[in-house]
Each structure stands twice: as C-alpha cells, then as structure tokens.
C-alpha cells in the first residue's frame, strides 16, 4: 500500500483569551492536538473519530494548511504542510463548516471562480461543473444566489466547490453534519465513489455509524492524543466500535461512563 499522508508529531495549542482566566486557575494554553502521528494510505477512507473537543478539526485545519502546527510536521504526497504549503494546497480539497462561500454569488459563478484560482483550463472547468452539478442536483438552482439556498443545498455547493480542482486528497470535517438522510446519503455515496476512483479521503466525525459505513482505517483521538489506530475490521473484531471507544476513553481519562 502506498503511503500518501504521513503525520509526524503534530502539536498545536491555543492561547485562551486572558479575560477568561482572570480568576480561574490553570494553564492559559489549551493543547488541542498533542504529538499526533499517523499514516494514511492511498485510496482509503481514513476516519478520525473522537468526542467533542478532541482536536479533530484542529488536526484537519493543520493538514489543510489553514493553521500552522507549533511543532511536528505532516507530508501530503511528500509535500510538507509547514514548508511547502502551496504544493499541499494544490493537492488537497478541504471541506469544513468554517469555510464559507459568498452569499452574493451563484453556485455557477462560485465554481468558476474557485476553479480559476487553481488555474484550471476553462473547458475542463465547464465539463467538470456539468457532471458534478448534475450528480448533486445543483443544476436546478445553479443561478440562484448562494445566500438564498437552504442548508443542504449550500452544503452540496460547498462540497462541489471544494473538489472543483479534482484533488487526489480530500479532507472532510464532519461531512454529514446538518444534512437530512437523503443528502447525507448522496454525500456518503459520493465519498465511496471517490475512493473507487483512487482518491484518498480523511474525514473526521463523532458518529460511529458513519465510520462503520465508510472507513477503511480509523484513528481514535481523545484529548488531542491518538488513543488507537487500526483497520475498522480489527477495531470491531471483538466488540462493537462503540464499546471499543468507551473502553479507550475510560483508559485515557479515567472516567467511567
């Protein structure tokens, strides 16, 4: 199996606003991701599973070069997220609720604009737009203002725009969050399709069923640290994924659930 992502000791902490800590005790820094290392292989769906605040989004933001790690590094197809950001940006597509599209524009325009920023040829843009818009049923509202679309419609457009440049490496933060079952199904089907096309997908979620349905390999992340990493088959061999997770959680935090 070809190694396409190598995460090597990623660490990131955030300063908390001073105001909050005037009276409170304790550290002024929150270590969101703590010396995280793992590897993902080409053509697989790798899931980062963890509870709220585990550091999933922070990890993905670092991989997508939106923020820089305090220490450690990660390599996407051999390119460093620290020193070779532009090359990484060309290789990846990143979808997270933090990234928004401008309300004033139509899906049609947004697709063209972002494809343009990646320097994609016009004819390629048009044919890709045609097939993606058709697949996601965006055609019906492609000339409406993005701001006037429903949450699900927006999510579809954001998804399509994030992969406008046909990246080989796709990073999805909570891909089905806020979607109804129909739209969620369209998205999960599409992720499987992308995998079939040989793309690599890293996704984060706290939904066990999504992991069970999609992922080839899973990293369980608790308190910013990797608690376990294995294939889905191995993790669910003896007990359900949920039980595996709770056992790990107890082991790491000492809390009984």
């Amino acid at each position: 199996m070809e190694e396409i992502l190598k995460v090597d000791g990623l660490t990131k902490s955030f300063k908390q606003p001073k105001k909050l800590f005037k009276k409170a005790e304790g550290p002024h820094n929150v270590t969101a991701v703590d010396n995280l290392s793992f590897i993902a292989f080409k053509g697989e769906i790798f899931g980062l599973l963890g509870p709220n605040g585990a550091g999933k989004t922070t990890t993905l933001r670092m991989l997508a070069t939106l923020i820089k790690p305090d220490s450690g590094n990660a390599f996407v197809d051999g390119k460093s997220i620290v020193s070779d950001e532009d090359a990484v940006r060309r290789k990846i597509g990143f979808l997270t609720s933090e990234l928004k599209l401008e309300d004033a524009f139509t899906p049609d325009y947004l697709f063209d604009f972002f494809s343009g920023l990646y320097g994609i040829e016009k004819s390629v843009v048009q044919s890709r737009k045609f097939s993606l818009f058709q697949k996601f049923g965006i055609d019906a509202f492609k000339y409406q203002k993005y701001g006037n679309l429903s949450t699900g419609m927006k999510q579809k457009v954001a998804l399509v725009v994030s992969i406008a440049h046909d990246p080989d490496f796709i990073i999805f933060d909570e891909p089905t969050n806020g979607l109804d079952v129909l739209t969620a199904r369209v998205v999960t089907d599409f992720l499987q399709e992308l995998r079939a096309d040989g793309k690599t997908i890293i996704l984060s979620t706290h939904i066990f069923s999504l992991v069970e349905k999609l992922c080839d390999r899973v990293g369980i992340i608790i308190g910013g640290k990797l608690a376990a990493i294995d294939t889905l088959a191995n993790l669910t061999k003896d007990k359900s994924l949920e039980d595996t997770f709770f056992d790990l959680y107890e082991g790491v935090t000492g809390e009984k659930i």
Partner: protein
Amino acid sequence: MKNVLLIIKKEFNRFFKDKRMVLMIFLPGVLIFCLYTLIGTVMENVSPTIPDDYMPSAYFYRLPDDFNDMSDLFKPQEYDSLEDAKSAVTSGDLDIVVEFPADFMDKYGSITPPDVKIYYNSSNETSFAGYSLATAVLSYLNAFTINSSADTFDLVDADEQATSILAMLIPMLMFSLLASSCISVAPEAIAGEKERGTMATMLITPVKRIEIVLGKIISLSCYAILSGLVSFLGVILALPKLSGGLVNLGAFSYGAGTYFMLFGLIISIVLLMISAFSVLSTLAKSVKEASAYIGPLMLVIILLGMASMFFTNPSVGLYAIPFIGSGIAMSAVLSMTASVVGVLLAILANLVLAALMVVLMGFMFKKENIMLKK
C-alpha cells in the same frame, strides 16, 4: 497576476450586483452638486458679480512697444513706481500689475525665454478676471513664460485671504468624500469576508496571499476612485454656479494640466486611504470592529486635510507629509499656484506609503492569528 485579475473581477461583480453599493457611487456626487448649487445661489444674491462689459484696470511696467495692443483690453493706469502699483492691487484700487523684464525683447523666443510677472489679488473678483484675461492673452504667444519664478504673485492681504477659503475647503471636502467612499467598501470587503468565513475559503487555495491583497486593494480603489470622481464631477459642475457667488475659483480657466494633476492626486490619495483602511480591516475581526478602528483615522485624515489650509507658503518638503501634503497640493492646484515638483512629491509619497501598507498586509495575510481570529 492572473489570480489578481480574477479577484478584482470577483470584487467588481460583488459591487455592481449590490444596488446599495452602486447607489453609493453616485450619492455623494449628487449631494455635493445640490449643496454647492444651493450655496452658490444664495451667495449670488448677497455678493455683486462682475458686469459683462467690465474692463479690468492694469498697470503695465516696461510694456514693450510690440505689446501696446494689449492695453486696449485693459484700463491702463499710471503709478509712480512698481511698488505703488502693487500696493494698489493689495488695497483693491488696481486689478493687476503686469511686469515685463528689462531684457524681454532680447530673450523673446529664445531657449531661455523671458518671464512675465502678473500680480493679482485673489480676494478681489475683478482682479481675478484681469489676471485670467492677461494670462490668456499672453500665453497665446507661447514665446515666454508667465509667473514661473518663485515670487508671490497673489498680493492678497492676509486678512482678506479668508475669501479664498473655498480653494482651501475643497481639499477637506474631497478628503471627506473620498474617505467616505473608501469606508463604505474596505471594512466590508476585508473584515466582512473574515467575519463571514469566506476569506478562509480563499486562503486554502494556492493563491498567493499578496495576490489576494493586491486584488482587494486595486478593486476597492477603483470603486472609491469612481465614487470620488463622481463627487468631483459634482464639484466641477456646481462651480460655475458657486463662483457666481463666491469669488476666485470660477475665474480660473483650468487647463488639462490642472485636471491631470488633480486626477493623479485623487488616485494616489484613494490608494493610500484604501490601503490604510484595509490594514485596519485586516486587523479587525468584524465589520463593526473595523469601522470602529477606521472612524478615528478618518477624522485624523480630514483634520490633516483641514490643517493643510494653514500652510500658505509651503516648502516643498511639506508636500511629502501624508494627507497634509496632498491637501496643500490640491488647493495649490486649484488656485493654480502649484509647483509641479510639489504635486509629484505628494503623489509619490502617497504611493510609496500605500505600497508599504500592501507589503505589510501581505505579511498579515500569512498570520493565522490575524486572519482566523474569532
């Protein structure tokens, strides 16, 4: 470079799809036109205007014989000395003094052309009319220069200078107009994009940060310049009406050079304002915060524009001071007393400062704690 264009196009798309923003281009200009016309109409009724058949009085010093015809256009006056004539201009008894150099005929049409000096009084309406007439008649010949030395030709009494306040008010007015069109776009386009999370979407593409900055600055400046020019047009169109009531400005016949210098000044001022406001908008988390930062700066800018009024005899170095220099340059251009070097210096200073801010923003755009601040 291609990405800069893409971003500029996107910004234009946003501006012109938004009715409110299109309206903002025209509103200040229309308002200023109405306001000026109103002031002009009111002033017309309180101050006398020059009759059409008015013949300005003039004292010709060393008038060459070949130029005798010129005195037909004026009421020639006699004085004991050049100095007496000049003080008559200051006191308002005489409209203009035209002084030819002693070696006028020797140098006439040569490589070092002679310089004719025309003294006038900017607080006196008829003196202005005389000055324009003499300038127009003499410059027709093109064989010598007029008022090219560093002397003071405006013999206005310091107290009476108040009447030429309009020429000085214009910089302040232009500053406020330009600043208000800049403030209507910069926070929205930068802090607004940060606040709404659309900036981050652009930041994960391989676009160079400086390309985003340039795209923003250029498109915002175009918008502000457009709006500034509409305002300026409002001023120009209202001038004839205004000058009917208030003296001075209308008496000038502005040439292409004047408009060119004004245009250069306006563009450089807008670039500087937009870059300064953009730096603050980059620092701010939200449009609201950006406006709170920019408000005081805008006040300072307008005050600096006002301060420029008080430099009646500015040294060239003053032109390089941001906003004060541009203000001085603008009123000097409008009262046709500008030195080209000074105006160019003011423009250059604005452009250099704007460029520095663009570079600064390029760095700021790379900082996650600035760009992704919540």
